[in-house]
């Protein structure tokens, strides 16, 4: 047996017995005042909120770009935009929505919610959490840096070579995209690492793997997927940047390179990524929809397994983005069949939600409307995906508006609707105030009507043969009327989103006080105050079932969780570490305090990428030195964290 350093028996406490507990913990966990405090905080709730706000800002920017695009396409032969402007706008629309909104918004939910769902006081690596946010912010700015100059990325979000090669695209447009994506990938990787280790380490005692909420399964699966998939796209973009600036030949046919290598690497990343930006959102629905059906989710285990198996299969279907590239029939048959198989786990989830609705007693809140509508949109988006899984059909559908319809049903239907529903659901937890139900219902119906009016006809435009990514079309093509409907519908959808934002704004100021558990929901986050105190839980909860707050309403045998009495852990910032599967307590974890190092590191990284973009090698070298120094300071073994022989105060 390894000698494990100082030992301590955790003190047990009962919150009601000692009203001073909360004040003591608050002093330990509180972030310092002023700007420095704001810049150095590592509180997961603060970081989660920043993720949510920033990703919504990007959603609005991407939405404005879409609005301009739809104005251009609303009628034949429009000249609002030049082709080059159009190409930059549709590229940035895709980049923004897919990379700067869809995953970060889910990271926002997970950052905010994970420790609360799992009964912990923070993520496993609070400073890395701050780092991933700062990189996201700076990479987002980096990707937009060339936009005001009219030199934004213009190769489409999947940026095929050789169009993206220097020969055909010599401006800085693609370099900004390539370096920005490598940079942003670091945020994703750091965040994924944090989620995985948090799951492995910092769950409350008794929160065994078969009791964690489905959102946790979704984010965990997405994180493992990202960890293994992001290197593919970072490598591809790095190779592209080298081809463009250093003279390598990875994609250059003349020197033995292969343009299709880009597509393989991109989609080996891209397809798992698509699941990474829907699985946590599906998790939101799997957790929140049952609350409003007043019953536990039907089929917890199949849904959790379906989540994981979707990602596993998701690594084996990348070629279905390349059905028209001239691959041999045997490969086409294999990847086509695999793409059909991946429908099966989605079917498991759909029928689990349907069964939950049927065997429950729905309460029609605004949040629930979003979740119920999501089930419908999921089916529509899933079925258009099913059609494109078939090679011969896909060779007609691919790169038409049918695919545009599909991906918007998937990304808006399966990401935006659950996200907006999730905000209605957790808004009272985050802010302490309820959102206005009446305005919530209005925004739902306008969004739902606008979405279907705007995006369903895209299927028809696709079936009428309209290719995607064309900046205009002739009046003789017969695509005019359908495009007018699409444009009007998408504007209606935008009005719905604005109504939602108005609701958020009004409710922040004037919303009704929520109390800890306004929905009478079952999971741990609802056991603490709204908004939660900075230390989350005054005592570490002990979990005895999947639905800790419903144990009094479910049949006996479910066990009795405890949120009132538990480990106090107040020798500095502390939380409990538990075993991976069974969640037995096995270590008292020391958590780091607030720090400016994450921000400094992110700024140094940004400086490296700016230096690479501008070919300023001095900047690169100086920034790398700063980065290394920051890292050494950050990682310097600390007595307070129990990383050296001495440990403070034991």
């Amino acid at each position, binding site marked *: 047996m390894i000698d494990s350093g100082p030992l301590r028996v955790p003190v047990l406490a009962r919150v009601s017995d000692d009203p001073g507990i909360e004040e003591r913990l608050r002093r330990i966990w509180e972030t310092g005042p002023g700007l420095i405090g704001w810049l150095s905080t590592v509180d997961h709730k603060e970081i989660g909120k920043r993720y949510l706000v920033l990703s919504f800002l990007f959603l609005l920017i991407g939405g404005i770009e879409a609005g301009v695009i739809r104005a251009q396409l609303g009628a034949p032969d429009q000249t609002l935009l030049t082709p080059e402007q159009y190409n930059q706008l549709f590229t940035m629309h895709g980049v923004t929505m897919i990379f700067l909104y869809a995953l970060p918004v889910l990271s926002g939910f997970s950052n905010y919610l994970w420790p609360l769902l799992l009964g912990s006081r923070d993520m496993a690596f609070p400073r890395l959490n701050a780092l991933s946010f700062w990189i996201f912010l700076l990479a987002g700015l980096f990707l937009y840096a060339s936009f005001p100059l009219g030199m934004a990325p213009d190769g489409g979000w999947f940026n095929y070579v050789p169009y993206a090669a220097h020969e055909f695209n010599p401006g800085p447009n693609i370099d900004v995209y390539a370096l920005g994506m490598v940079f942003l990938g670091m945020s994703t990787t750091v965040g994924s690492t944090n989620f995985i280790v948090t799951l492995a380490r910092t769950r409350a005692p008794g929160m065994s793997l078969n009791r964690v909420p489905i959102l946790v399964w979704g984010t965990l699966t997405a994180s493992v997927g990202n960890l293994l998939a992001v290197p593919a796209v970072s490598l591809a973009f790095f190779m592209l940047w080298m081809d463009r600036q250093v003279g390598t030949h990875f994609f250059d046919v003349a020197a033995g390179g292969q343009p299709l290598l880009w597509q393989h690497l991109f989609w080996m990343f891209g397809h798992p990524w698509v699941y990474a930006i829907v699985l946590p959102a599906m998790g939101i629905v799997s957790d929140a929809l049952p609350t409003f059906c007043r019953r536990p989710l039907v089929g917890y285990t199949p849904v959790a397994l379906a989540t994981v198996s979707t990602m596993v299969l998701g690594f084996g279907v990348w070629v279905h983005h390349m059905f*028209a590239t001239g691959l041999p029939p045997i490969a086409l048959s294999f990847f086509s069949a695999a793409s*059909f198989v991946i429908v099966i786990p989605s079917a498991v989830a759909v029928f689990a939600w349907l069964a939950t609705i049927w065997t429950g007693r729905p309460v029609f809140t605004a949040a629930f409307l979003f979740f119920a509508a999501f089930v419908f949109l999921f089916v529509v988006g899933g079925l258009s995906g099913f059609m494109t899984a078939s090679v011969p059909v896909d060779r007609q559908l691919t790169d038409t508006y049918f695919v545009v319809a599909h991906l918007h049903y998937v990304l808006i239907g399966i990401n935006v609707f659950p996200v907006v529903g999730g905000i209605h659901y957790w808004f009272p937890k985050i802010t302490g105030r309820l959102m206005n139900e009446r305005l919530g219902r209005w925004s739902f119906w306008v969004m739902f009507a606008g979405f279907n009016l705007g995006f369903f006809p895209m299927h028809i435009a696709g079936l009428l043969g309209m290719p995607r990514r064309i900046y205009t079309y002739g009046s003789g093509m017969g695509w005019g009327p359908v495009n007018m409907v699409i444009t009007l519908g998408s504007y209606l959808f935008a009005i719905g989103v604005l109504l939602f934002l108005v609701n958020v704004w009004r409710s922040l100021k004037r919303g009704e006080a929520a109390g800890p558990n306004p929905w009478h929901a079952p999971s741990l986050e609802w056991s603490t105050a709204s908004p939660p105190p900075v230390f989350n839980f005054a005592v570490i909860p002990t979990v005895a079932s999947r639905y800790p707050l419903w144990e009094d309403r*479910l049949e006996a045998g479910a066990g009795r969780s405890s949120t009132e009495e538990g480990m106090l852990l107040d020798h500095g910032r502390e939380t409990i570490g538990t075993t991976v599967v069974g969640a037995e307590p096995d270590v008292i974890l020391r958590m780091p305090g607030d720090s400016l190092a994450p921000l400094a590191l992110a700024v140094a990284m940004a400086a490296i990428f700016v230096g690479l973009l501008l070919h300023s090698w001095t900047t690169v070298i100086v920034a790398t030195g700063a980065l290394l120094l920051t890292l050494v300071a950050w990682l310097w073994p600390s007595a307070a964290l129990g990383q050296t022989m001495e440990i403070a105060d034991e």
Partner: protein
Amino acid sequence: MTGGASRLVAAAVVVVAGFAASQVARAESSMSYLTTFGPAGDPATRLGWGLGLISIAVTVIVTALLLAGLLRRRQRADPKALAVASDTGGMAWIYVGTGITTVILLACAVWTIRTISAIAMPVGTDLSLEVSAAQWWWRVRYDNADPSQVFDTANEIHIPVGRPVRVELESLDVIHSFWIPKLGGKMDVIPGRTNVTWLEADAPGVYRGQCGEYCGAQHAHMALSVVADPPATYAAWVADQLAQAPRPASSDVAAGLATFSRHCAACHAIRGTDAGGILGPDLTHLMSRSTLAAGTLPNTPANLLAWLADSQAIKPGCRMPRLALSARELQSVARYLQTLQ
């Protein structure tokens, strides 16, 4: 959900479905692949309709189940109470639903794999074309073992009805995709490799196509058409195409040719003259083609003059530069080009 809201949904569904049906029935756009006209496309079209109808049926059934589940009458209860007393139950939904889904998927996978072989190129096609895609037009070369029977054209392919035609695809720059919706699916055109597809039309007609892979500024204006002719018409067309351009019949036309040779011949070829450029389309029989600039404009004298006068206004970013020609010179080049029947 209130009764009013569900009526609203029902009304919206009716409106959308009605609109969809009217669009499909009315438009039958020249690019629509809801009906196809040959064995390279038909099996995929049947499969597409099959999968589409399955999808519609599944959507209708699941939506009905969803709405019924939402709207069926239930007793109102205390908001804290639960509808069930245990964490179990409802699993039959998952077993049955996933079971049926799996059977349908298996059937569709088998149908798909059979269709993949059904649309494979038949052996022994004796007619072969090389199509090269470039930003933003299509070069078409009719191959023949006899070099004197080889000729180039652009943006318009003629094929004989009822005969399979092998098409070899090469890219002169970036990735494009060759797509004639009414005759079959896309095949990407990728630098460094030769992809092969095939065409066969079982009815005479003009089948429009368009580049299917984003390829830059003028991706929107990279169309082509396939003209399926009865065999005799096709043979006559080939004979016409093999002919060299006529010599100028008047001094005015000869001046046009001279201007053309000075300003245009570096990029364009006209067989029978010393214009031999290969960067742009072969113009030997320009007037036999129905469009200009890869489907951007109908080929009329007015459009031809407009195109020569300011191609960048019509197709911004295209590879054809603004020509430094006087109005008179433009007129004479246009008149010369109009002799290229």
